[in-house]
């Protein structure tokens, strides 16, 4: 086991290094730069822009800039944002709670509803419920989130004053109830797509398990249907979902850009898009490295969990 872990760790480190080089190269070689935002700002001259570029070290050779970023990162200094000069880790950390709140709550809702819909759909295959669930899933997958979010805002904030039009909380207030009130709409809009995906996966996984011999045996033994479904079938049907959940980890912290834009939710997706627009290289490198790290951790975690959960798997 420990040999396996060591090997995976080594592979991860090499992968992270490669990712950092590629990310740095692509970001800096892409046309445009962090000073383009000032090109049309009244009061700033070309002389000023050239001086600022030099002061920021943007005119040095690329490998030198990469090396500086790299060895500073190893020391724990991930650099400072070009925009508000805050340390990159603080910037990412500042946006992380908002994203976690939104993603965890929407994933929870999606998983609970999706599992229930998928399992029922599998058990009652080809019934009216199953048919409606299938169609519903297709519709939910096809609806553009931006449009749906605006429709929800229009219906429940503009027409009916039930929900706030966006933001995380009402400024001046900050009670838990106020937070929840603001969380409902974006979490539900975001959950919509995940419910569809999750229910489809769950349904096919469940179908495969129900057809197995041990389920037939359990039923033949006279076990109550509830025990058969929950204890035998569901436990095994959830197995492939672990792998899927592991892949979901980076999305969990990557945020949902469109939902965050529509509901003005200050999360990671928004941070990433703004940073791209302003070419905020340090923050972009930080977010990319964190995402890469999460992908690797997610995969490793899923593999380990799989081995723990399924005694048939041996890791070596």
């Amino acid at each position, binding site marked *: 086991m420990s040999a396996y872990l060591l090997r995976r760790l080594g592979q991860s480190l090499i992968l992270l290094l490669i990712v950092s080089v590629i990310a740095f190269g692509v970001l800096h070689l892409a*046309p*445009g*730069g*962090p*000073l*383009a*935002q*000032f*090109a*049309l*700002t*009244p*009061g*700033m*001259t*070309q*002389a*000023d*822009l*050239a*001086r*600022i570029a030099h*002061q*920021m070290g943007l005119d040095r050779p690329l490998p030198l800039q990469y090396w500086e970023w790299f060895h500073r990162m190893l020391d724990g200094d991930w650099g*400072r*944002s070009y*925009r*508000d*000069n*805050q340390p990159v880790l603080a*910037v990412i950390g*500042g*946006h992380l709670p*908002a994203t976690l709140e939104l993603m965890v709550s929407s994933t929870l809702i999606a998983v609970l509803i999706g599992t229930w819909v998928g399992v029922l759909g599998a058990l009652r295959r080809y019934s009216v419920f199953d048919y409606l669930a299938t169609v519903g899933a297709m519709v939910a997958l096809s609806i553009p989130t931006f449009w749906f979010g*605006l429709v929800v*805002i*229009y219906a429940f*904030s*503009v027409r009916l*004053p039930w929900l*706030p*039009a*966006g*933001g*995380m909380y009402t*400024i*001046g207030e900050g009670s838990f109830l106020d937070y929840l009130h603001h969380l409902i709409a974006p979490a539900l809009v975001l959950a919509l797509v995940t419910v569809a995906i999750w229910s489809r996966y769950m349904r096919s996984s469940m179908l495969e398990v129900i057809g197995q011999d041990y389920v037939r045996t359990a039923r033949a033994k006279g076990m109550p249907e509830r025990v058969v479904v929950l204890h035998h079938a569901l436990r095994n049907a959830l197995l492939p979902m672990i792998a899927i959940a592991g892949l979901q980890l980076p999305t969990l912290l990557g945020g949902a850009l469109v939902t965050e*834009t*529509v*509901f*003005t939710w*200050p*999360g990671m997706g*928004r*941070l990433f898009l*703004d940073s791209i*627009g*302003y*070419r905020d290289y340090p923050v972009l490198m930080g977010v990319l490295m964190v995402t890469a790290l999460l992908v690797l951790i997610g995969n490793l975690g899923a593999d380990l969990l799989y081995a723990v959960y399924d005694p048939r798997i041996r890791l070596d």
Partner: protein
Amino acid sequence: MSSRIWLPASRRLTRRGALALGLAAGATLGSRAARAQNQPKPPAKPTGQVVVGLSQEPTVFNPLMPHIEVDQGVHWNLFSPLWGVDASGNFVPQLATEVPTVANGGISADGQSWRVKLRNDVKWHDGTPFTAEDVKFTIDLINNPHFRSASRNGHSLVTDLTVVSPTEVTWRMQKPFAPYSSILSWTFIVPQHILAKASDPNTAPFNNAPVGTGPFKWSERMPGDHITLVANPDFFGTGPYLERLVFRYVPDLTVMFTQFQTGAIDHTGLQGITADHYQQATKVAGRKVEVGPAAFVESITMNLSRPQFQDQAVREALYYGMDKKGIIDAIYYGLPSETETFLPRQSWAYNPDLPKHVHDPAKAKQMLDAAGWTAGSDGIRAKNGVRLAFTNSTTAGNHVREQAQQLLQQDWREIGVDMQIKDMPAAVIWGDYFNLSQYDSVMVGQDKMTGPDPDVTAYYDSNAIPAKGGAGTNTMEYVNPKVDALLLAGATTVDRAKRAPIYRDLAAIIRTDLPTLPIFQYVTIEGHKDTLFGYQPSVYVASNCWNIAQWYWAS
């Protein structure tokens, strides 16, 4: 009690409707004085909170570091300059007791020796008294080679900066530079007692917990979401009348408009309400929509090093072939106003007597024929092997500009010109592509003033061409020795009355040469709740949040 811009019920904005709108907008601006008399009075104590929506996030809180317009909107409320500028372009003393001029002896006759007297009753937000040391520190910091200052334009000419007393500071300019008074009106003074202690002013904690002398104090910031400021009870000027000021970042303009409708935000700041939402905005109950002038001018800027553009006849023909009114009415709903020049109409240096644009495709064709540009088999003109074809670029994703480009493409095809649209993202086009004159032509909105000053040397001087090693923004590579001379005269003449005619002459020459084809002067369309008073748009600042110290809720 407030006036509103009423529109007829028909939705399609007709020419008459556009005229009515223009008149109404003008009437609104003109009757501001009359309205002021009917306005409710501000409260005795600061009351209430205002939430300003912004479609870009303010992230820079040290006013001396590189920043964009929305950042300046926050700076106006936290900090004070030596003197500010009102909506008519007049300087208004703030930290200084009076604005130095040649007349009152604050500036010597040769424009080089300056003496500024300061107030003695101003306190920083942390209670420390403001003194002349802060002024000296600010200007020294700007010129500090290790400090990443936004602009040293003007400041780099300051020498012998001396603190004569806690309320007086003097210096010498290396050469007379008239725009410096305007540059100082946009230079916020920072506290010496805090920043001098920082080991590196670029990364000082002050930059995210600023302390100023302005009407509001820093309270908190939630990155990516909002910034909260609270009233400064010891503010030396009038106001503030609000307890709390919140700047909320709303990344999408459609979402910002929705929040304006629901009342989640009290005022839509930059980039305001888009022209296509204007009609709808005026019908929302309990809201007031203000259409005010902006300093930006939209133009087609041509790269004069391209052979097609070197012929004066081509530039004039393109101008005749352009349907300006069509662009303004059809695409911008008739809101912005046509212009013939680079300065906003409200500037004291504006020239109102320039020849007016006429849309005359027949005349354009005639001019091109006479100049020897004959149409080829594909209908596109050519002369000496040079085709009258070029690209036009602007920010990708700006659907309004894209429509304007398509209209122009059509208009110019009619007169035998082939214009191809080549748009790219903002971070790309406004980088080297624009600055190093790699473009054929761009559709761009620019505020060419130096802050509130009409000095446009950076854009029109022959030494200001970056592609040729100059330090400026003359990306169109325009060279005219007469213009160079006028620019120098304008920048070195300190008396405003003597400067105005220089800039009018300058505008006339540039209008004749047509290095850019001016289209319209921008308007800002900003809306707020109709019980909120004090809003005043101004072309002399970069953000209409400049005077929130005067805003208040009607009781």
